[in-house]
């Protein structure tokens, strides 16, 4: 193949070199020039190679001899002995293979540079012409040029078969129609009278036991009847934070006068930005910070956004007490919890200045 094809090679053909190319030259390597240096390099490579079987045996011994729960005090910390020794022997052994090969290649293998000629990425012109010619013969033989509908029909047929392929995926999940959304992302298991209990230990919460400045990560008592995916899915929406603040230090809008119990307020724990559970509450500023993206909500002001990327206030759960003074829900959340979505207009959600 000739380098001088018809393609643009202006740079290649017109080198603009104010200093002429002095060309390659090689200097002799120490390990080639000095026999002792060469022999030393050889010994080193063999020495490294000899370490490999030692490390391999050490690995096998460590694997069988050290119990998996054994520990080792090293670097001022307690570490898993089995893990550490397996890793060290294996890692050093594998590394030794590499180091030996590289040392061999640098000091013993002939390392003169070779020069190889490049070719243009494109095929030569005659080859292109030949290919184009053969292509034209094929097109002619296919008849597609004369009988136009053949090509159109084939393209249309293949194209339309993409529709069944896509339709096959329609059962990947339920369709979020308005009706389906009402049953899923717009609903939680909070309902009138559902007891509010502490998460994990399920302690019911008596209003009189809750101190000012207290934060409780709570759940509906009914959640703990569920299991598996249903439990997780409902928990992902029903998680609650209950806080108590001095009534005279917070603002309760007229529309939410009966949503709290003596300064005890309940909010969704699910951030309205992308849905992380939030519970970094500062009891003096009443600010609640999301650890994922630092949206900050003011729980002393109906959960409005005071900082960060969240756009909607944190939904508040209307609560009251039962006859024994324990906290219960008055209803479900009045707006869906978690991130916004296209179909629902969140314009009328509670925001700063509403009453």
């Amino acid at each position, binding site marked *: 193949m000739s380098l001088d094809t018809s393609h643009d090679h202006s740079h290649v053909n017109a080198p603009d070199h104010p200093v002429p190319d002095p060309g390659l030259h090689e200097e002799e390597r120490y390990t080639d020039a000095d026999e002792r240096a060469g022999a030393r390099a050889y010994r080193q490579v063999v020495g490294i190679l000899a370490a490999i079987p030692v490390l391999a045996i050490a690995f096998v011994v460590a694997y069988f001899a050290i119990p998996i729960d054994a520990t080792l005090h090293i670097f001022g910390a307690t570490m898993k002995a089995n893990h550490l020794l397996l890793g060290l022997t294996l890692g050093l052994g594998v590394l030794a293979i590499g180091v030996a090969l*590289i040392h061999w290649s640098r000091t013993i293998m002939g390392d003169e540079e070779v020069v190889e000629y*490049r070719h243009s990425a494109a095929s030569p012109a005659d080859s292109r012409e030949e290919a184009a010619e053969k292509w034209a013969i094929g097109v002619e033989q296919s008849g597609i040029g004369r009988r136009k509908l053949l090509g159109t029909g084939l393209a249309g047929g293949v194209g339309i078969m993409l529709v069944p392929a896509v339709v096959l995926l329609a059962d990947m*999940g339920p*369709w979020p129609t308005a009706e389906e959304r009402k049953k899923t992302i717009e609903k939680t298991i909070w309902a009138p009278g559902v007891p509010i209990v502490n998460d994990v230990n399920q302690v019911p919460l008596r209003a009189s036991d809750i101190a000012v400045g207290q934060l409780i990560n709570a759940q509906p008592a009914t959640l703990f009847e569920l299991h598996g995916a249903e439990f997780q899915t409902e928990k992902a929406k029903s998680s609650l934070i209950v806080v108590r603040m001095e009534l005279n230090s917070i603002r309760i809008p007229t529309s939410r006068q009966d949503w709290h119990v003596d300064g005890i307020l309940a909010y969704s724990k699910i951030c309205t930005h992308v849905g992380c559970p939030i519970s970094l509450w500062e009891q003096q500023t009443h600010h609640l910070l999301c650890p994922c993206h630092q949206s900050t909500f003011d729980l002393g002001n109906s959960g409005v956004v005071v900082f*960060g*990327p969240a756009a909607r206030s944190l939904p508040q759960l209307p609560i009251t007490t039962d006859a024994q003074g324990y906290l219960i829900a008055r209803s479900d959340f009045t707006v869906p919890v978690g991130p916004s979505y296209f179909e629902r207009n*969140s314009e009328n959600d509670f925001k700063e200045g509403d009453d």
Partner: protein
Amino acid sequence: MAKPTNVDPEVPQGVSPEKADTSLAASAAGGTVGWVDDRVPVSGFGRKALRKAFPDHWSFLLGEVALYSFIILLLTGVFLTIWFKPSMAEIEYEGTYALMRGIPMSEAFASTLEISFDIRGGLLIRQIHHWAAILFVAAMIAHMLRVFFTGAFRKPRELNWLIGVGLLQLGMIEGFAGYSLPDDLLSGTGLRFVDGLIRSIPIVGTWAEFFIFGGEFPGELVIPRLYMVHILLIPGLLLALVSAHMALLVYHKHTHFPGPGRKQTNVVGQALFPVYAAKAGGFFFIVFGVTILMGALMQINPVWLYGPYNPAQVTAGSQPDWYMGFVEGAIRIIPNWEWHLLGTTWSWNIALPGLGLMGLFAILPAIYPFVEAWITGDKSEHHILDFPRNAPNRTAFGVAAMTCYGLFWLSGGNDILATQFGVSLNQVTEVMRVLVFAGPVIAFIVTKRICLSLQRRDHERVLHGSSSGVIVRQPDGGYSEAHAPITTEEAFTLTQHHEPAALEVAPETDDRGVRRRGGKQVGSLRARLSRWFAHGRIAKPTAEEIAEAAHHGDHELEEGDVHELPTEEEAATH
């Protein structure tokens, strides 16, 4: 594939024919090679490939790190699949790790604990797998930056660059899918984030969410689905694209840095067999060994500390792996923009930084080679790399993009920054909102100035040699530094680069190096861009200037050449 047509007479060959041991060659031809070749015609390929030249430079090994980490990921990944159960079914843990006993968790998490606590070496392999994933993406990005800054993406390698961009995107998705599989608190938090991100897509958000999760978050399908994506779909695509990437690399032959004897028409380097094969093979073991040692010595993703995913729990420092950090950062610092339009909600506070930035991260690199070629009108092949300083606008653009990425990335750790440096989280966020726009502009200007001053330094070195460190006193009492001439090799290296002219508006003018295809006009915008791009350089000295300087410098060492450095203003006018 073409073969060398002739041999450069200036250059000594690695193995001259008379050196080769003919009897050895003959016995090899009759032995194993002969046996295989009788059945598969390997010697045709071997004849060309065995002595293929591969240039040496440390930065050329970044891509190898990515390739080898990928192999390590395949090997360790297979090991992990032996025990991992991709199931979200709930069980009560009764295993070895006492601090989780009795806690309800998914089978995925329980099997991850089993791999970590009950399978000897299981934790080691898990940690190697995770470190290799972190290295894989890191090496891909570093490799991409090397290719970008040296101009190796130019013709004929644009398609390979595009494959590389695809590999990076796939690698990030693959990593994220893997991060989600153990179903620990961090992976669940990450999935919840993805759920919110998908839900925010205008118009089809909830549909995409319900289809991907099989209903509401988290459901019980997403981990089995991600498992399929993680161990079959994306590795398959990666494998195919990696093969194409390598095939094109072999076909195009590697680029090389400028230097004596290195031309557009040749490639100078080590022969594939044995030196390069030993080096590349040795490097594989080094990468593998280092990754194993990282897995042994540096704890990563201790899922037993995070606990199983629980939608009501979260931890300070909830971050994705580093390569998703820039998206995380953008989502942290975006102002809370949400639109309401005809009864619908447009969550720009998620869609813009999430999907928008990820889209930009894919599209900008993908179109860059074509945009630059359009601006310069350059249609020639490039096999000699640019020194980054010799393409100051490209380099400055690259550094600006890196700065922007880096600032978004830092924003993704704004809480860690705040605690580690004792500053306010809110202030970090607000400062970052400005810096992600201002930083790249500053970086562009500063980088360009640095490139230009480096070019000036090259110019000075070629004409006046290097500083000798010898201070000479003049007869008139002034002091100056004597300059030692540089080697011809260095002078050549510093002056070999091509200085393409800018495109002109007038279509008839056929400037050197610029050819137009049938009747394409150069618009005035394009010409302006081209002028701006081409003029950002210090012209290299001409042969005459060098000759004159050399003549002047003949007496240099005896007399001490008074050489005054140009002022800032002079430098700026270039």
